[in-house]
């Protein structure tokens, strides 16, 4: 009995080591998303925080909340287009907002748009797939053909 306990104790570091190894190997595909989230947070703090606020709660009657928002977790193309083209005068969850969402398509690069959207889609109680640079490129293409 005692031997088993001692053996288990001795083996514990091995289990922990294996577990760590597992985490390490899992981290690889996640790493780029982690970097996107980090970059995205920095972009959010530079371009979005004034209107949408640090807690994502927005400003009553001026800028909508991003907390648990269907507009944030919606399909990629529609979310990207809000950032590219801006939004004004739309009723959101029964509320109208007086300040415009400025079009940032000419201000931010594709990668920056992908990163900030990935951040917002996975912050403030939201959970939605990451957005990539090529998603943004595709949406720009659609937007261009649509406007032509």
């Amino acid at each position, binding site marked *: 009995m005692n031997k088993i306990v001692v053996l288990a104790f001795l083996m514990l570091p091995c289990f922990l080591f294996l577990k760590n190894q597992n985490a390490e190997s899992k981290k690889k595909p996640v790493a780029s998303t982690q970097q996107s989230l980090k970059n995205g947070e920095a972009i959010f*703090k530079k*371009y979005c*925080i*004034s*209107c949408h*606020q*640090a*807690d994502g*709660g*927005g*400003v*009553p*009657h*001026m*800028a909508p*909340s991003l907390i648990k928002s269907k507009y944030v977790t919606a399909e990629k193309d529609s979310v990207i287009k809000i950032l590219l083209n801006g939004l*004004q*005068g739309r009723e959101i969850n029964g509320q*109208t*907002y*007086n*300040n*415009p969402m*400025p*079009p*940032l398509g*000419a*201000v931010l690069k594709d990668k920056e748009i992908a990163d900030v959207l990935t951040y917002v889609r996975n912050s403030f109680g939201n959970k939605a797939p990451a957005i990539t640079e090529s998603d943004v490129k595709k949406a720009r293409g659609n937007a261009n053909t649509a406007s032509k």
Partner: protein
Amino acid sequence: MKKNFLFSFLVVAIVLVGLFSFTNSKHVQTLPKANADNAGLTLPAGFSAMNVADNTGEARHLVVTKEGNVYVKLGSAKNGNGILYLQDENHDGKMEKKTGFGDYGGTGIGIHNGYLYASSNTDVYRYKLNDKDEVENPSQPETIVTGLLDRGEHNSKSITFDNDGNLYVNVGAYSNSCQAQDRVPGSMGIPGCPILDSAGGIWQFKADKLNQHYGDGVHYATGLRNVVGLDWNNQDNALFVMQHGRDQLHDLFPKYYTTKQSAVLPAECMYEIHKGDNAGWPYIYYDQIQHKQILMPEYGGDGKKTADKKYLDPVEAFPGHLAPDGLLFYTGNQFPEKYKNGAFIAFHGSWNRSPEPQAGYFVAFVPFKNGKPSGKWEIFANGFAGEKTLSPGSAKRRPCGLAQGPDGSLYVSDDSNGTIYRIMYKK
């Protein structure tokens, strides 16, 4: 005959003195009991406060009748009512009876010459009052002004009156700083800002003429980005307005402004307005630290350059972004002498000071003498927002409108939760 005359004179005098002291003592007696915690407000010594009503809706501006009842204009109609009439039937100070009418949202409300005036975001209406200041025909207002611009941004239409039969209405600019692309970083200002032809100013209309449009009014003042609080000063016989200064200097022009500078600039300005005045938006803003008019970055400014043309200077300048939504010149007798004819200002509270903490959410006071500020401004009532205000949405209450009761009490509305406060003073 002479004796008789003297006698009746004496009788009249005694009755008058009696009446006067009676009404005086009645006023002191009728001040209701304040809340033990002053309804959560912090006030100067001797002042107390109570919440006379709660959950009224988006309580924007308000007015107190000579009977002591309250009309509140709601930002958006609640249960089909955009105007609430609050009454205190058992005289305990609490306004337990609430009725409503007017199915439109808006901000402005006021009583003038036997009428209740109220504004939507495009029109001004009025309702005839009876001798008890009650609206007898709530479903049939007269339209005084119609067709004012509402493009979302800065759309509230506040109102006030002079003593010569005129109504003053603000029309806010539907823009932050007249950029070619509103609020887009680096976007430059449109030369000869076209917004100013129909917004970004004050319009004067006749208070008793129906169906007036822009063309029937006088474009009284321009270069005012957005005014929500305004009041007529009877000592100076002039209009005073509180301008909401432009937002986001750092967000839009980070090479000229740090976040710290952007959190306090530009000033929220109090202007004394006379016909034809131009306060300079969107070409300049007032910097309360340099005490100068500074050229807007959208029009070639860099935070230091001044403008060639001189615009109207403010009579008082407050820190940026506090959002002054209510202005009232205090003419009552209840408060100490210091407050007589001074200005109370309701600051709605900031949103664009990130990453600095948000600020405002209080009622300030500026002492006045002969129609001019005579001392430094101070915070009069604080504590509306609760302990910590991380963002405007988390503020418990946001002061918006101010009104004076017939006994000299000060009423404050909150458009976040709809609390109506009454602030009183007892020696």
